[in-house]
């Protein structure tokens, strides 16, 4: 199938108007050698066959009866009204609002999004979104390097390992030194910050789920004249101390938790919110308020002189497309929940995680520390996390994100709960753990094998 409106008569009429004989003639600039014959692709499918194919692929994924997976993304409550409104085709099929007269929908929604991110983080200036949490952290480090003119970045080991990998990728070619602050009993100790450090980056709750001493870390950074970059889960900011409260200069993170489905990891969006002095260093789009010819309030892309399409090689970043629609979905979702709903969801999520931790402890899986955690925590395992995760999946339970070996915690895994976790879900997990960890002899053999 195809999506073309062209009838043979249309093609003939167009060719006649252009004054060429054939469509092929329009490709005459392409050297003969470059014109491919047939691509090695299958023939097109009709719509029914197409969906059969996709459904068959989807059916190869195992059904999940209960999930305790976290590690940066979580399946939070999204009311039906959120996708209904955010995915209206006027939003979905528009482009960057270059013509503000006919783009007030996206512009105003983005202005509102910026306000919400500012409220959550307690910092004044939010951009319109980034690709994801990891690239937002990398851009935050670049911002600090530009602003401070220093070439060293300190990052806590509590920052998501994938985020730290992306950070390394972005910093390497610019010859910025990246140093890690190792965790001590699963949270970040106060680091020694040299005068050449552009910023200190820490995440709260950290990758393992535990609450970090953010005020102390911020103070340590500031004492050395460095910026403090707080990586945060916006869902947690319903109740946790905000970056603004503990003096962070930049708040960044991944917004999936406040209104995007997990979707195998994307798309969702990153955010970046900064203090006033950092405004002109901020990468990405910004929407500002102004007035129109008739004095009406209106919104427009602003301060574009920071961006690549104006400044080219001198831009603050090469970012062009951001994650507008994912951010819009979060704005709708945050408006649907309101402060009360978000607080309730966050509280329930914390309560469920603590219930889960108790049940796991009773089942013999003890937490690795007794420090406070938000809605995720780490436990020590008697088998490898990968093997346990596979064995649980056979029972329809998705759980046990492996803690990377770099943390030096041995066999350990993360377990998460959200406000959607039910007591029945936890019963399922505990029952499955019972079967998996004290299995009949043959299952035990498989477990050992898979763990190799």
């Amino acid at each position, binding site marked *: 199938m195809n999506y073309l409106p062209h009838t043979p008569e249309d093609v003939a009429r167009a060719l006649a108007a252009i004054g060429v004989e054939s469509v092929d003639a329009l490709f005459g600039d392409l050297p003969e050698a470059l014109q491919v014959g047939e691509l090695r692709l299958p023939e097109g499918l009709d719509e029914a066959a197409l969906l059969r194919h996709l459904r068959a692929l989807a059916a190869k994924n195992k059904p999940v009866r209960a999930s305790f997976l976290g590690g940066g993304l979580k399946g939070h409550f999204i009311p039906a009204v959120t996708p209904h409104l955010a995915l209206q085709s006027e939003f979905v099929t*528009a482009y960057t609002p270059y013509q503000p007269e006919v783009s007030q929908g996206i512009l105003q929604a983005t202005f509102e999004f910026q306000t919400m991110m500012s409220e959550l983080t307690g910092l004044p200036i939010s951009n319109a979104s980034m690709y994801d949490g990891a690239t937002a952290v990398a851009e935050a480090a670049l911002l600090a390097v530009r602003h401070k003119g220093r070439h060293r970045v300190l990052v806590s080991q509590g920052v998501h390992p994938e985020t730290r990998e992306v950070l390394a990728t972005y910093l390497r070619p610019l010859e910025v030194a990246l140093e890690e602050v190792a965790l001590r009993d699963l949270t970040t100790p106060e680091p020694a910050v040299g005068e050449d450090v552009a910023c200190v980056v820490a995440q709260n709750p950290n990758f393992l789920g535990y609450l970090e001493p953010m005020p102390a870390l911020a103070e340590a950074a500031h004492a050395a004249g460095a910026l403090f970059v707080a990586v945060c889960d916006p869902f947690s900011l319903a109740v946790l101390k905000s970056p603004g409260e503990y003096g962070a200069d930049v708040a960044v993170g991944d917004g999936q938790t406040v209104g995007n489905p997990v979707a195998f990891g994307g798309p969702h969006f990153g955010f970046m919110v900064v203090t006033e002095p950092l405004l002109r260093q901020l990468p990405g789009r910004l929407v500002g308020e102004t007035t129109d010819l008739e004095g009406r309030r209106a919104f427009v892309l602003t301060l574009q002189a920071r961006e690549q399409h104006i400044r080219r090689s001198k831009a603050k970043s090469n970012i062009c497309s951001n994650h507008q629609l994912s951010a819009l979905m979060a704005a709708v979702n945050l408006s649907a929940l309101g402060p009360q709903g978000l607080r309730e969801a966050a509280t329930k999520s914390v309560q469920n995680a603590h219930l889960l931790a108790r049940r796991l402890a009773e089942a013999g899986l003890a937490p690795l520390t007794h420090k406070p955690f938000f809605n995720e925590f780490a436990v020590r395992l008697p088998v490898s996390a990968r093997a346990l995760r596979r064995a649980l999946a056979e029972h329809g339970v998705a759980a046990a994100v492996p803690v990377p070996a770099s943390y030096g915690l041995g066999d350990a895994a993360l377990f998460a709960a959200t406000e959607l976790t039910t007591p029945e879900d936890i019963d399922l997990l505990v029952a499955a753990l019972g079967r998996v960890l004290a299995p009949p002899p043959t299952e035990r053999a498989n477990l050992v094998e898979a763990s190799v």
Partner: protein
Amino acid sequence: GDFPLIFERSKPGRRAAHPPKPDGESLQALLGAEHLRAAPPKLPEVSELELVRHYTGLAHRQMSIDGNFYPLGSCTMKYNPKVNEEAAKLFAELHPYADPDAVQGALELLYNLQRDLAEITGMDAVTLQPAAGAHGELTGILMIRAFHEHRGEGATRRVVIVPDSAHGTNPATATMVGYEVKEVPTAESGEVDLAAFRAALGPEVAAVMLTNPNTLGIFETNILEIARAAHEVGALLYYDGANANAIVGRARPGDMGFDVVHLNLHKTFTTPHGGGGPGTGPVGVKAHLRDFLPTPIIKKVATPEGERFDVDVDLPHSVGRMRSFYGNFGNLVRAYTYIRALGREGLRGVSSAAVLNANYLRVKLREAGFKIAFDRVNMHEFVAQPPAGVKTLDVAKALLDYGMHPMTVYFPLIVREAMMIEPTETESLETLDAFAAALADILRRAQEDPDALPNAPYTTPVRRLDEVKAARKPVLRYTP
């Protein structure tokens, strides 16, 4: 009056959504008071109906492909098939940290898409990680840098060459990777000035970034020579895929000599633009760059039980990770769905019709009184200019009253008063005729009344915004 902000509709105590209610210990008890914020964030408080009215009203204040012709040059605003959305929903609940055996369907889809995009671009391997075209550029240039470093030329190769017609992301990307940018001029043909290009080459050049066809919509006919010259000095050739809609199914960057190529799935492969994203920018490379790809890559492995898909995170010289998880998976599903729907013949039809439409519209605009910059058979887009005395900005604003979104304006930078127009293949000739007629009417009005255009648009919700005011004293959030 002003359309209210959601905050202005807010009233304490209202709410639209009802999550599960908390019922256990307090947060103070569970987390410690020192970790809790002093006051809740001031998010909007509205009922579900107020929420619906707000965002429905905003949607009505927004042009979109589904409502309007939207011929933004180099943006490929083509139709986004609805079946793609159905396909994406099938995978919305999957978690990337699930056991790989539990997500074999998702991994197989990724593997298939890597393979198909490699075939379409003529490359040997593909990463699906990059989240947008510019992110793909960053990925590609990082790989080129890693390649040179691996060969011990990291310190000496410091320059990236881009034409003066290039997208702004090209030089910005080079800067992010620590390179210097050298621009080469455009010849009278509308193609890269070959002599100037040769002169710019040298052992310090790490990469040449090209869009082909370029932003004037003209195919670089010397591409094989350009590639040869670049490779001779040890530089690698980077293909900016923003304009791939012109050649998809007919020609492949890999065959032209490009070493690295990115594609914009939100342009050529119909994933929605979403008001400015999420995009997706997969990158394909030739075999000599395979080991430098970012991780993860999806691989197929043979097992005693049959083939299985797994995640490769160990490439010897990988540039590292470009973003978290598997990239914009939802959009990868959409693009894969589109490729399966069209098949090989359908993809060829895309570029055929895209180029046909663009040439038809070029001729129509010439008839309507516009000048065509570099007036020759073009590819998927072309650049026009209004007649003397008429400003491109005014033409754009006047178009809004005709229910059409304007073309890209004032780009490429090398054409005065540029109007860069890309109709795409999914538009009918009737729509192109209506666009040409509107433009002709706008010129007529400009002649009849010099004030007509500078005051346009007349019928939009707001008219001619004060952009200077917005930038001079930025108001970037609502304050009660």
